[in-house]
């Protein structure tokens, strides 16, 4: 099992290489990618900021929970920070398991939990030169509602 927050570019193949086993019949790779639009606006890039001292611990926690669903420890997740261009990979999640249902479930769990509680924020840079923080989700069990609107969603 592997959970990393890094500023280096993500190589999906290397993430995939961390999973797989002769026992496994299913391998699943999810990539979150910076796209060129958001809420009808043209986007030219995205800046990812993390609370680094905390984020890697939360990501490991999420990976551990997902591994229970998966039934194997063959799970690798990497989240990127810094300045990303359109098409760059912001998050990669690779899992493998004997049967496919567990891989789909665990992969989905990781990305949903990342969006709920990984201390990461992103600022959209628009083609028109403006920029704004993407409205996010208040982490659960963390002291209640936030003043900022709770919407969110990216990939």
């Amino acid at each position, binding site marked *: 099992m592997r959970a990393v927050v890094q500023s280096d570019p993500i190589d999906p193949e290397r993430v995939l290489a961390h999973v797989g086993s002769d026992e496994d019949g299913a391998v699943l790779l999810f990539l979150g990618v910076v796209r060129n639009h958001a809420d009808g606006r043209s986007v030219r890039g995205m800046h*990812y900021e993390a*609370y680094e*001292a905390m984020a890697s611990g939360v990501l490991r926690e999420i990976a551990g929970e997902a591994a229970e669903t998966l039934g194997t420890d063959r799970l690798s997740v990497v989240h990127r920070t810094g300045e990303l261009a359109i098409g760059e990979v*912001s998050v990669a999640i690779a899992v493998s398991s004997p049967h496919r249902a567990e891989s789909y479930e665990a992969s989905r769990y990781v990305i949903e939990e990342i969006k709920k*509680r990984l201390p*990461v*924020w992103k600022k959209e840079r628009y083609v028109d030169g403006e920029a704004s923080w993407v409205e996010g989700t208040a982490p659960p069990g*963390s*002291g209640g509602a936030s003043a*900022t609107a709770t919407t969110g969603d990216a990939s």
Partner: protein
Amino acid sequence: MSLSVRTLFFAAYRDLLGTSELSVEVAPDATVRDLVRSLRDRGAPFDGLPEQPAVAVNQTYAGPDERLSAGDEVAFIPPVAGG
């Protein structure tokens, strides 16, 4: 008597306050709620923080009733948007 904690502000909160880090003095039996209240009581721009922001104490999410200790790292976590 008071104790000192290290507060951290990220993303939109940092932009709001114009700073990413502050050392704050709180009473020895202070909770997260007390810390938030004392910051908001400073007025603008601190009163722009939510009444119940998500907070992590020493890199773990903490509720408003959690007690603080000297030297704690208390991070104010805006709504997250990873992925």
